[in-house]
């Protein structure tokens, strides 16, 4: 086992195939570690949702399910902080150009809610300039007692 359950910070770096369902290779361990560090259920739900959206976006929209391409993931979990960086090998996109799906004329559009959900549920979300890598952070609130 590469992980040390006693460590205050759990880190994981892995490369995923561009296949449907590959997000579980990340989320299963991530959720287990969040539980291990005593994160509350509401935060675990929020992190699961945001991580799933980021990973599916990378596999489906970024790499377009191309078996020649991979998704690189860097994860960090501590008792106070969760960080996940997801990078695909696609052409990237401009997150500012994703239409607001809460506007009346787009409210019933079937797609385009993943980025909004990540923004809402995470403490911090940043894309790189190319738009093929997203960094998600969730800070536990309130912080555990020292």
């Amino acid at each position, binding site marked *: 086992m590469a992980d040390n359950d006693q460590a205050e910070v759990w880190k994981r770096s892995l490369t995923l195939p561009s296949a449907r369902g590959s997000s579980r290779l990340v989320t299963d361990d991530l959720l287990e570690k969040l539980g291990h560090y005593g994160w509350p259920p509401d935060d675990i739900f929020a992190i699961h949702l945001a991580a799933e959206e980021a990973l*599916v976006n990378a596999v489906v929209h970024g790499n377009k399910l191309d078996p020649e391409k991979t998704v690189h993931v860097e994860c960090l979990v501590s008792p106070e902080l969760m960080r996940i960086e997801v990078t695909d090998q696609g052409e990237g996109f401009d997150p500012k150009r994703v239409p607001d799906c*809460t506007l009346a004329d787009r409210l019933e559009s*079937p797609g385009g809610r993943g980025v909004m959900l990540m923004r809402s549920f995470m403490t911090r979300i940043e894309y790189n300039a190319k738009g093929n890598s997203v960094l998600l952070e969730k800070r536990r609130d309130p912080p555990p007692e020292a």
Partner: protein
Amino acid sequence: MATHRRIDVSKTGDVSVVTFTDPKILDEAVIQELGGELFGLVEVDNRKAILLDFTGVEFLSSAALGKLITFDRKLKTAKGRLKFCGLVPGILEVFQVTKLNKVFDIRAERAEALAAFS
């Protein structure tokens, strides 16, 4: 009557009550199958009053939201009515963030939702 793998369907009066067999609705293949089964309730079975009871569902991805929106459209086109109940707080927040709580009639309990059909 179609057989279902992703949903269970029962009748309470004129209302078809649908529950979900998967606690986590996130896998693309599951969502596709789920969508097909829901659409069949309208397009094949001609059901007009449908309650989706999410009791037991712990997680829902944005891809599943898309299927629910399409399902709602199909039911509205058929002059049917759709209501939701039994959403856990996290999933309810997903609907609130995306403002889909304005599109769907979401009730807390099954009894309240059933009463709202009459």
